[in-house]
């Protein structure tokens, strides 16, 4: 099946292996290193004792209850944002699309901020994020709508405007809620600190459902790349495909944004890296983006934990911004 996807550079099978190994390496490094250095043997022992529900001793608590959930959360969020980014770029055939387009991430951030400022229980944060994400998408879609169609340029413009308005509302809330200002600010800069197993388990269904649906849509997304008219004539219900893809991506984004905040550039650059190495077919693009996105975010968080950059969103933006500019230049020269 995968062989049907257009190839460029590395073979897809080898690529999958390499990326899976990269993710594994990131997870192992991320679990072993940090502000407290724990030797590999101790890490393995801790993982074993945790998995077999033995009593945790020494640094076990740090490995099993603090680092591993944080690393898993990083992988989950990185994978979600990257898959959503890849799907959005395909749905709207726009290389700049990512969960920020359509105001999805800004909407999620506003909902989560409301929940944090109001002091609602933690489990309600992703729910609130999802609700505002859906309201944001609904606003964007109704603004962009032209009859029964959603022309890509109008959609992107509407998304940018809705996103800006929602970000302004979030900022206003941050400044009103002085007491929690830094907590909310840290959140809007993206932070994986205090991610526990319970948070991972809360976010998991959002990621699984959202990303799962997008993976199932991969073949239809490939067809869409031939152009809307061609896709329609091949029997792809373009509008419905867009709607379902947007809903699925909103679900995954709300889950990702709910606890760890807004993490920039991952959803934008990861699909481009995969496309450069393995070609544009969505059936390889989406799963490989998940692997690379997960590895990248785990690595970025490791940097955040061990350097004064301190927050994962700051690291991804600092690394991602220049990379993206390089990407733009390179595409122009091609």
């Amino acid at each position, binding site marked *: 099946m995968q062989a049907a996807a257009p190839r460029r550079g590395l073979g897809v099978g080898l690529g999958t292996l390499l990326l899976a190994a990269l993710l594994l390496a990131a997870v192992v490094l991320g679990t072993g290193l*940090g*502000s*407290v250095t724990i030797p590999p043997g101790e890490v393995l022992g801790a993982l074993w004792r945790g998995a077999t529900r033995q009593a*945790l001793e020494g*640094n076990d*608590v*740090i490995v*099993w*209850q*603090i*680092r591993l*959930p944080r690393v898993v959360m990083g992988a989950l969020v990185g994978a979600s944002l990257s898959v959503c980014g890849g799907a959005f770029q395909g749905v709207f055939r726009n290389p700049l699309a990512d969960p920020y387009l359509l105001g999805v991430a800004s909407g999620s951030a506003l909902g989560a901020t409301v929940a944090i400022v109001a002091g609602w229980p*933690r489990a309600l944060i992703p729910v609130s994020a999802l609700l505002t994400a859906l309201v944001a998408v609904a606003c964007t879609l109704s603004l962009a709508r032209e009859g029964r169609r959603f022309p890509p340029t109008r959609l992107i413009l509407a998304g940018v405007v809705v996103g800006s308005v929602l970000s302004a509302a979030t900022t206003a809330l941050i*400044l009103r809620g*002085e007491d929690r200002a*830094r*907590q909310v600010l*840290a959140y809007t800069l993206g*932070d994986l*600190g*205090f*991610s*526990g*197993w*319970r948070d991972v388990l809360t976010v998991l269904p959002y990621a699984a459902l959202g990303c799962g649906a997008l993976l199932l849509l991969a073949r239809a997304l490939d067809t869409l790349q031939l152009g809307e008219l061609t896709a329609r004539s091949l029997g792809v219900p373009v509008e419905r495909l867009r709607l379902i893809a947007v809903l699925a991506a909103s679900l995954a984004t709300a889950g990702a944004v709910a606890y760890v905040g807004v993490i920039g550039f991952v959803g934008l650059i990861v699909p481009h890296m995969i496309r450069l190495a393995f070609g544009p077919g969505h059936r390889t693009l989406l799963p490989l983006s998940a692997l690379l996105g997960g590895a990248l975010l785990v690595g970025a968080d490791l940097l955040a*934990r061990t350097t004064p950059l*301190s*927050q994962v969103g700051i690291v991804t933006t600092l690394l991602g911004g220049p990379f993206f500019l390089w990407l733009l230049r390179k595409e122009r020269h091609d």
Partner: protein
Amino acid sequence: MTFPVKGILTLITLSGALSGAAAATSYPLTITDDLGRKVTLKAEPKRIVSVLPSTSETVCALGLCDRLVGVDDYSDYPQQVTKLPKVGGLYNPNIEAMVALKPDVVLVSQYGKLAEPLTQAGVTVIAVNPETYDEVFSKTLLLGKILNREAQAKALVGKIKGDIARVEILTKNAVRQPTAYFEIDPTPYSIGPNSFMGVLLTKAGARNIIPASMGDFPKVDPEFIVKANPQLILGVDAKTAGARPGWSGISALKAGKVRDIPAELNSMLGRPGPRLGQALMGLAKLIHPELFK
């Protein structure tokens, strides 16, 4: 040869005290403020605007509360400043309101960008904000000089130091000084031992788990706190602390030594001003309730 050291010292102290009591600030007075600007006051300020809560407290403690004509949104102590016109906060300063109050001087923090627009509007601006423990005293004296209340400022500094010494005498004798983690923000941020709050924590009879190398108000990696395994946690409520991944095993939680900071004490602790001694007392009572029975 015996030398009357003691006598000379007494003489110096005496003359110092006398001259201090006698000398009034002479205007025009030129000082260098916390923004490194040279500022000249033509005469003793009669109309004062303070945009820093700790400065408002100090001005009042110098007996000049009735000269305050405006304060920032967060100044709330002593009670009478709450009735004054509000001129905004650090993020949303109301410069027009400040100018409209026709102040002789606006006392600002070195943060925010008030100095330039106010100076251009013809208002005298002085940036004075204490950040370290020692600066609480030096800036109080500086304010005393600026406002022609040098003797009162010296007395105030003496009183604060006395308040602090009284608590310290008790806490120094504490049998056990617990290792402590003090959280000022749930992201989490803590306090280094060299910050003024860190100095208070030590004086209150606790051993700060944050090393000086991490800075004055560092963002802390949660696993560092778990590794340090403090015997006391301050600034978080027990429920929140218990819900954090891996925290249930920390000594402080096992022993039930997790204390949230009451709101009033919290605002006192955040203000490097005249209530430093009271803040220390409150903190010491939380850490060593047995000493204050």
